[in-house]
């Protein structure tokens, strides 16, 4: 486990927690340190506890842990909410002059730093900068060169003018000096800087950037936590590349807008969360049966119904695999890291267009709201490939016309994939429909044609199974007795948890599965292992069920559905607990 520092700022929604946390994370990233962030937040604009947490190390960090070293507490509740993670020696920075903080009690063994955040901010030019004063104080505690904050403040406040930037820089210094002068305490943190260059981004942004890189030019969506940031990222940026973002009146419209744009030939996508997928399911079958390439992104959150909108869950696997009436060919791809959000988005567009089939891109809240550092090469644009599949132009249309000169948009080819003529292509005019149709796209209930068209659509999936790679990602000791399987954002926590287990003498083979349909066959891997444990953030074990169905063997399960993502140390303990009974028997 990397030598790390765990830092947080917490208060009420509306206190500027998010942007303050981001400024600190950015500063750490600019100083060549790795960062992994998380948020505690509620679905409201003001009021309610909220916190932004930063874990940082010179080594890669991939998870949150149950430990908090420095806490900026703007409210008393912030301390209460984090009692389990605070430990002896944890530093709590607070403003004892704030009315609500006057009676605050610092738990025994912890170090309370009472810093007049508001007063010092006023000295620097305005009370609004009190959080930045706190950042300066934190820099003093962590022995983190305050110059690193300046670049981050510039980035954040630059468009508000140089005076504002300088006031903030001053506010940070006042906080730093106050701690250095007023407190004798020696803190044993030393936030080392490196020459490494990192970029800092979250999963929603990575999906948006992947979409532009892949040539997506049309996005339609309806705001919903935690997918909104995909739309916000694309707004203003996709326009620079000749595209557009449409905010629809609802998710029913969003998917139909995206479908229309895809029929026009644009690479097109929509993103939403579970409740939006419910609505989009109405049109999902049409997308598939009209053989329209479309990327539908589900950034999962806790359900069912409105559930816990700002909480983590991986509960939509079954819906993305089976949603919609009738039998609908599809692909289901689920990135396992923030960087993979980028690459799987690129892949999703290629799959959609090569096979003229809808692709579910399944992300989750933990990926969406986590800001994580990566070397910029992790997003190497030269490695982005665009495969548009069987698009036919004016010259090629002819070979796909029937004897009466009509374009066979649903031609039953050997590989199942038909030619695709964008509207405007001479002689390519054709219709398509959600009704069963013939090769020309015209309604039919002819039994032979029905079977021909169902088979050709399913054949595309068979072709894709044979032609594409549906590999898993593998970590740890391939010969280990214990096999851990997971999907989605849990990858980071499991990888770090493996480090902890290894210190206990437990070796683990870890398979992280980014393809849910089609998916890799894990029969051999599971038979080779003594114990297989499937880890996922849901109550029923949807991936575990799939695996048992595929392999016809029982697996152990670790499920978490509190709404909070897995933590590395917690997970290591749970895996150990699963293994322990067997050790006793032996």
């Amino acid at each position, binding site marked *: 486990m990397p030598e790390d520092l765990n830092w947080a700022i917490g208060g009420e929604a509306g206190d500027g927690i998010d942007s303050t946390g981001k400024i600190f994370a950015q500063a750490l990233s600019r100083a060549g340190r790795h960062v992994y962030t998380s948020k505690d937040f509620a679905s409201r604009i003001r009021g309610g506890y909220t916190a932004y947490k930063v874990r940082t190390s010179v080594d890669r960090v991939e998870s949150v842990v149950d430990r908090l070293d420095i806490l900026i507490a703007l409210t008393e509740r912030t301390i209460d909410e984090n009692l389990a993670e605070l430990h002896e020696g944890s530093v709590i920075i607070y403003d004892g002059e704030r009315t609500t903080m006057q009676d605050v009690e610092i738990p025994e063994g912890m170090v309370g730093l009472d810093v007049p955040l508001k007063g010092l901010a006023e000295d620097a030019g305005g009370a609004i900068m009190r959080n930045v004063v706190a950042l300066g104080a934190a820099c003093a505690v962590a022995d983190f060169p305050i110059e690193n904050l300046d670049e981050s403040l510039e980035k954040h406040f630059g468009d508000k003018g140089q005076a504002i930037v300088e006031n903030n820089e001053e506010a940070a210094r006042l906080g730093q000096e106050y701690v250095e002068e007023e407190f004798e305490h020696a803190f044993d943190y030393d936030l080392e800087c490196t020459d490494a260059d990192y970029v800092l981004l979250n999963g929603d942004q990575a999906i948006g950037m992947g979409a532009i890189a892949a040539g997506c030019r049309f996005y339609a969506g309806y705001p919903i936590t935690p997918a909104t940031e995909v739309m916000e990222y694309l707004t203003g940026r996709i326009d620079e590349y000749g595209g557009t973002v449409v905010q629809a009146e609802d998710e029913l419209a969003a998917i139909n807008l995206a479908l229309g*744009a895809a029929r026009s030939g644009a690479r097109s996508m929509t993103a939403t969360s579970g409740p939006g997928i419910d609505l989009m399911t109405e049109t999902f079958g049409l997308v598939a049966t009209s053989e329209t390439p479309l990327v539908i992104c589900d950034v999962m959150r806790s359900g069912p119904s409105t559930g816990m909108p700002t909480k983590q869950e991986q509960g939509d696997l079954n819906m993305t695999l089976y949603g919609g009436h009738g039998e609908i060919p599809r692909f289901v791809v689920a990135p396992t890291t923030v960087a993979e959000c980028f690459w799987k988005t690129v892949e999703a567009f290629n799959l959609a267009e090569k096979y003229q089939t809808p692709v579910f891109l399944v992300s989750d809240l933990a990926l969406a709201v986590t800001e994580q550092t990566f070397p910029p090469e992790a997003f190497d644009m030269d490695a982005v490939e665009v495969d548009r599949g069987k698009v036919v132009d004016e010259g090629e249309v002819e070979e796909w016309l029937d004897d009466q000169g009509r374009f066979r948009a649903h031609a039953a080819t050997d590989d199942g994939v038909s030619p695709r003529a964008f509207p405007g292509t001479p002689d390519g005019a054709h219709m398509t429909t959600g009704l069963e149709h013939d090769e020309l796209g015209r309604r039919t209930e002819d039994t032979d044609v029905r079977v021909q068209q169902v088979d050709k659509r399913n054949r595309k999936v068979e072709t894709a199974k044979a032609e594409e790679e549906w590999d898993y990602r593998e970590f740890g000791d391939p010969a280990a007795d214990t096999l851990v399987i997971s999907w989605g954002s849990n990858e980071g926590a499991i990888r770090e948890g493996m480090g902890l287990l290894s210190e206990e003498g437990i070796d683990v083979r870890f398979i992280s599965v980014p393809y849910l349909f089609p998916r890799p066959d894990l029969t051999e891997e599971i038979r080779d292992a003594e114990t297989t444990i499937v880890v996922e953030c849901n109550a029923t074990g949807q991936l575990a069920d799939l695996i048992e169905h595929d392999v016809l063997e029982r697996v152990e399960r670790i499920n978490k559905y509190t709404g909070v993502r897995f933590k590395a140390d917690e997970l290591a303990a749970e895996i150990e607990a699963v293994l322990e009974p067997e050790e006793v028997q032996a």
Partner: protein
Amino acid sequence: MSSEIRFTDFKSDKQPTWCPGCGDFGTMNGMMKALAETGNSPDETFIVAGIGCSGKIGTYMHSYALHGVHGRALPVGIGVKLANPDLEVMVAGGDGDGYSIGAGHFVHAVRRNVDMSYVVMDNRIYGLTKGQASPTSREDFETSTSPEGTHMPPVNPLALAFSAGATFIAQSFSSDSQRHTEIVQAAIEHDGFGFVNVYSPCVTFNDVDTYDYFRDSLVDLGETDHDPTDASAAKEKILEGGETEYAGIIYQDEGSVPFEAQEGIEGPMHEIPEGAPPDATDLVREFY
């Protein structure tokens, strides 16, 4: 090019399965004629249709077309047009498709004012499901699902459009072929969302809103001194109750600027590089 296009070029070789005498024949003929008259070709035209008797229209016409999900034809049409503004996009639907299940989309499509046309075959009945009340059915109209009438006032689609900020509102009658064609043509030519409600009688399930009824009660505004650019005159006609029905262009905002022009959307979006765009690395740099 336009001189070579004939309206029969927009006809497919599928024979309509509408009931003999259905208003939709006339509605569709007018659409095809208007498309030809405005110089469009089937290869540059995209028709979107919803579900219901009206929804079958994509099958009987020849163009690029999608027959989609009930009520969602408008968002599809908007998506098609925004991704390729060079296409002529026409959305066809019925009163159930547009004013019931798709009513939400209708309001927002009107607001968005994309340069396309929307032709609604309004027969004030659900025909394909064999005669249930539609959103435009009269309050006392008795059907299999409303044996004592609907107990609800009918939707006034023109008022709905007007209140949502429509830039073109027209009404026509499917059996008045020449006028209907002229009106649809004006909707196509309008710079924005051209909305035409077409009285398209159902001869099988609606014995109230018949050809005779419309012929007797329709007043063609083209034969009056009505000025469609006069919003308050238009409002008066739209909200006027009673037995008078109006045909013709009821309202047109001549200063209409389509959504796509306001958004700066220009060419088709289907042409993209074979890899990431040349300057895509700038996107990564933003995250430093």
